[in-house]
């Protein structure tokens, strides 16, 4: 069966693990557990009549102690960047993270999940931010690992565009 390695990249606490949990196990917990190294899950989807197994590499988020480890990106077919829509710094750092990833493994099909839409009263991103992503030609999806909004759409886009 065809396999595609998809890396989840973002700042700590953006919701990478929760998105994978929701997508693979249909589960959500508000309790935060930081990822150490890489946690690997898989899910098989059908794309244009062909079964494809997505190997979801959930990378430890960038924090004050560690940057993302680019060696984990080696061999990736696509990257799902995750931004916490309630924390502007996670949006700002998105561009740095993408530059680091591009330098390490070249440009890959990428989707940006603007996550935590369920926290609408704390949302800090606006139309200008959407336009900035659009101008850069990035595909963005508003998502909530809690409600499931946009989760299937983000991974489906990744599955369809993974090289």
């Amino acid at each position: 069966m065809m396999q595609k390695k998809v890396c989840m990249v973002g700042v700590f606490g953006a919701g990478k693990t929760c998105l994978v949990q929701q997508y693979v196990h249909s589960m959500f917990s508000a309790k935060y557990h930081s990822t150490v190294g890489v946690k690997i899950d898989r899910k098989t989807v059908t794309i244009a009549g062909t079964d494809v197994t997505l190997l979801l590499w959930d990378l430890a988020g960038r924090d004050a102690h560690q940057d993302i480890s680019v060696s984990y990106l080696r061999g990736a077919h696509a990257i799902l960047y995750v931004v916490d829509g309630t924390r502007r710094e996670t949006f700002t750092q998105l561009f740095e993270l993408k530059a680091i990833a591009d330098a390490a493994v070249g440009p890959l099909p990428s989707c940006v999940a603007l996550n935590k839409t369920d926290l609408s009263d704390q949302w800090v991103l606006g139309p200008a931010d959407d336009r900035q992503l659009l101008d850069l030609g990035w595909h963005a999806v508003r998502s909530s690992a809690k409600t499931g909004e946009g989760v299937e759409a983000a991974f489906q886009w990744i599955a369809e565009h993974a090289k």
Partner: protein
Amino acid sequence: MNLESFGQTDTGKVRSNNEDQFVIGTLRKSLELHYTSLDDQSPLGNLNSSEAMFFVVADGVGGRPDGELASGAAVQSMLQYIAQTAGCFNNLDVTRENEFLERLESGVQRAHQQIQREFGGPGGAPSTTLTMATLVGQRAYLIHVGDSRAYYLHSGRLRQLTRDQTMGNYMVDAGAWTEEQAARAKVGGNLTSTVGGAEMAPEVGLVDLEPGDTLLLCSDGLTKHVDDARIATFLGRPDSAESICKALVSAALEAGGTDNVTVVVARMQ
């Protein structure tokens, strides 16, 4: 990267038998050329330094007979599978890395089926936890079932690499319980996934290690008596892996030793 390792197990002060098992081993599959007329030896390059170290801890599930049979059978089955898949360690490129991860999972599935086939009966088969780290180069590949644990100490900071597969954690992950509720619940510590048991869902992960890092695998006989802060203190000492193992086991015994305790320590140098 050089590596120094040691392992120790103890029955503890309460149990009459030891249902824990551990293994530390190295798998080599290499070709060493002594003399040759070949001009181009590059195709043989990937056979020169193929080596993987592996560390396993298994804890037979207590409270039922044959727990030690399950842990022993699981470890032996994994070792046989590793030996058969030795070719995977050669030049572990991206494609083969995915294959290798699949094979690790297959190995655990095979151990699970073997225990059910050989020891299963009307009351079900005995079961065991299994936590295994395979070190290829600087990358540690982890496969984990149950509530034994893998930790690593990096730059003085202790991180738990595995998450206990217990009913309490399952309910927390499902958003149904808080951690406080999970800690209070009588069934919070019940295992939701074991090798040989009714449910088995291995978790797979990896981490790149650096010189100075210390890897620890242990059974819950350690963690129920020695908290993470003390574990970090022991691992942070500039001692040998053997000294650290003995100190950790002693600490668990001094704190009650209510369960079998097993510790495997590997120090990257």
